[in-house]
């Protein structure tokens, strides 16, 4: 009963792009098959074909020796396939039960049978090993719990093949553990599972076998995860050798430059203080909900702090709004790039110049479009931003390139303190490497840098010093040399 699900020479052409170029591999029952590759490698496209959302341009999908040709997502569902996407498709104002059974409410003459609905929902929640009430509105649940509901929906269809698309990107460590337990359970029940992720350590933890895609091509399938190492996978993904993805080198630090004293406000449980030296890169580690993003937003003035003092270069500053913060030389790269970072419908140039254009006005009023274009071109060149032109809408750029645009926005301002909230979230390995390089360059120039990351290896690989947060407060600070995974985790995990 091997080779349960076979992809045979699957291709997908979009106008001008070959998103998938004749890829073939097989997934077995009772196994978890990892699918890795950079953004644009074709992973998502393959899942879309599997789910019937896209029609392939060539090749075939064979399930259990039957050739399948999906013409719709319904078709794919009926063939026992469930694809769980990164974006959750839930209705926040509806209850857990309603969301779980949406589209297949138990009914009689159009009236919903409430008791049956609740019963079915409870069953499903038990399978998911969760303990929330089926009557709760989805908007009151955490992201992790919502993800579980999405999985629950898939299981209700009795799927034999379940594909996960980057399911952990917004989950906390605890939620990830829980998710892994459920995925392993599914495997035990004989399901064939495809698991797409950027995080290689997850692939090693979870998968039995894995396939690497690059530029729409099948690069290699590893039947046994023991045959591979991290380095090999990265090399296959990126297509070149990246010895040490973090590329850290020690650099001299200056005097204390940025000080936060006893800041307090929404999202924090106690007063928080820390200092950053000139040229220092400080990583903020903690679980999701530890208050790291909230702390950054308080410092940045996006949320008003109730108490506390900020000092740049020994001068007291007040950030009553992001606008003030920028004038004081502080910037923030928000975590949710799409929702809070980019202006999707505007061009790359406009996204770069959005803040700094006020410094280059003609007659103090009119935009200097020529100068704006030159600024944009300079950064496109300096940071190697991949875009066909300065007028390209930013939403068409990849995540890594969007992040570089937002960095350019602040590099063209007079910024001394960089607050970066998950700067590499959802960015592929190659682009991550480039973002790290930019961080180091900024530090070399004497900027003070604070960044939030939920990825332990990243925090340990990039930061000079690591501040650990837990439950809305700082619990400690470790120098690069003293930091170990165990220490950081034991500080970050809630003591119970």
């Amino acid at each position, binding site marked *: 009963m091997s080779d349960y699900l076979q992809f045979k020479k699957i291709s997908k052409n979009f106008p001008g792009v070959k998103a998938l170029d004749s890829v073939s591999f097989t997934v077995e029952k009772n196994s978890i098959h990892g699918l890795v590759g950079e953004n644009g490698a074709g992973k998502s496209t393959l899942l879309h074909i599997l789910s019937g959302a896209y029609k392939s341009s060539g090749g075939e999908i064979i399930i259990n020796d039957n050739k399948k040709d999906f013409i719709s997502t319904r078709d794919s569902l009926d063939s026992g396939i469930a694809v769980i996407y990164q974006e959750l498709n839930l209705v926040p104002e509806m209850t857990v039960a309603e969301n779980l059974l949406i589209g297949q409410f138990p009914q009689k003459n159009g009236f919903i049978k409430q008791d049956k609905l609740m019963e079915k929902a409870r069953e499903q929640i038990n399978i998911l090993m969760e303990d929330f009430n089926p009557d709760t509105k989805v908007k009151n649940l955490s992201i992790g719990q919502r993800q579980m509901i999405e999985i629950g929906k898939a299981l209700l269809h009795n799927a034999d093949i379940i594909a996960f698309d980057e399911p952990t990107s917004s989950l906390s460590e605890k939620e990830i553990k829980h998710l892994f337990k459920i995925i392993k359970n599914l495997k035990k029940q004989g399901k064939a599972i495809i698991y797409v992720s950027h995080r290689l350590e997850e692939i090693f933890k979870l998968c039995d076998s894995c396939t690497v895609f690059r530029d729409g091509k099948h690069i290699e399938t590893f039947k046994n995860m023991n045959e591979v190492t991290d380095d090999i996978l990265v090399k296959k993904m990126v297509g070149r050798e990246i010895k040490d993805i973090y590329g850290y080198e020690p650099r001299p630090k200056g005097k204390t430059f940025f000080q936060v004293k006893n800041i307090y406000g929404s999202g924090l449980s106690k007063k928080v203080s820390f200092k950053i030296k000139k040229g220092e890169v400080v990583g903020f580690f903690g679980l999701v909900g530890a208050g790291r993003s909230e702390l950054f937003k308080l410092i*940045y003035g996006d949320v008003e702090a109730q108490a506390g003092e900020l000092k740049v270069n020994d001068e007291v500053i007040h950030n009553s*709004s992001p*606008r003030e913060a920028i004038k004081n030389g502080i910037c923030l790269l928000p975590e949710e790039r799409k929702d*809070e970072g980019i*202006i999707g*419908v505007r061009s790359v140039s406009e996204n770069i110049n*959005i803040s700094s254009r006020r410094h280059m006005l003609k007659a103090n009023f*009119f935009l200097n479009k020529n100068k704006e274009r030159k600024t944009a071109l300079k950064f496109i060149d300096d940071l190697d931003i991949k875009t066909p032109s300065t007028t390209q809408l930013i939403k068409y750029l990849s995540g890594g390139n969007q992040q570089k645009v937002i960095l350019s926005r602040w590099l063209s301002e007079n910024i001394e303190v960089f607050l970066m909230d998950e700067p590499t979230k959802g960015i592929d390995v190659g682009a991550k490497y480039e973002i790290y390089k930019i961080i180091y360059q900024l530090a070399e120039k004497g900027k003070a840098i604070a960044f939030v990351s939920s990825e332990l290896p990243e925090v340990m690989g990039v930061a000079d010093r690591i501040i650990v947060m837990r439950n809305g407060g700082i619990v400690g600070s470790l120098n690069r040399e003293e930091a170990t995974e165990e220490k950081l985790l034991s500080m970050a995990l809630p003591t119970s």
Partner: protein
Amino acid sequence: MDNKKNAKMTFKYLYDHYSMIMIFAVMFIVLSIFVPYFLTMRNMIGLVLSVVTIGLIANTMMFALGSGDFDLSVGSTVAFSGVMVAVIVNSTGNVWLGIIAGILAGGLVGLINGFSVAVLGLNALITTLATQMIFRGMTFILSGGRAVGIREAAFFKLGNSRFLDIPAPVWILIISFIIFGVLLNNTVFGKNVLAIGGNTSAARLAGINVNFNKITIFTLQGFMAGFAGVILASRMTSGQPNAAQGLELDVIAACVLGGVSLAGGIATISGVIVGVLIMGMISNVLNLLNVATFYQYVVRGLVLLIAIYLDKLKQHSS
């Protein structure tokens, strides 16, 4: 053959970027050929004159929609300022004082809208629906429900004099398009408005003062509606409490025809000008062809549907 390919490329570029202008151009040519009296100087002037009120307000509606908000109060504002100017001119005998009072009356409505939306955080659609009712009511109260005839003939010059044989309101409209075009394309304010409409959170985090900009947008919109009301009153030699009913939807329709995104973030002045002219052209041609008013509504609605459908097709293909 290379030429042919080039021609095709150029056509696609033009279609992608200026589809509405092309549709307008084709409509214009076809109507010029098939509708008698359409392409005459007299009719052209009449056409533009008929869209002066819509056009003036479309300028600022472009900013409101571009920032992701609506303004449904402009029709009432036009009537309110028209009656205001009539009442003040009659009671003081001072034309300038009347004009200023009319424009300020509009600005006041805009300021209330802006304050409610930005500072109180109310939904723009509902806020402006409320002020639409409030100021229509105020207009009736101020006028006693009757048209207020203006007694100073000097006031009528504003709407009825001519320069180079073209009526003053048409000149004013042209100048307003230039001013607001520059404001949109060449100033920080214009770009900030589109950034706010494109993504409000991102705009705020990028250092844009969102509240200040929103208040400015609505206040400008109020001033512009007030100004349009003054000109309308001058042309009609009276303040009409029933004037401009449903005007807000015509203005929004013109903007949408011009490619302004209702979701915010996308707006061009060339599009808005074309949108306004298409609205005027449709009414004009239907009048020339003696189509009954009742049918005109139907046709205008259909044209709007077709236009936004074409626009949607374009967005899908790219």
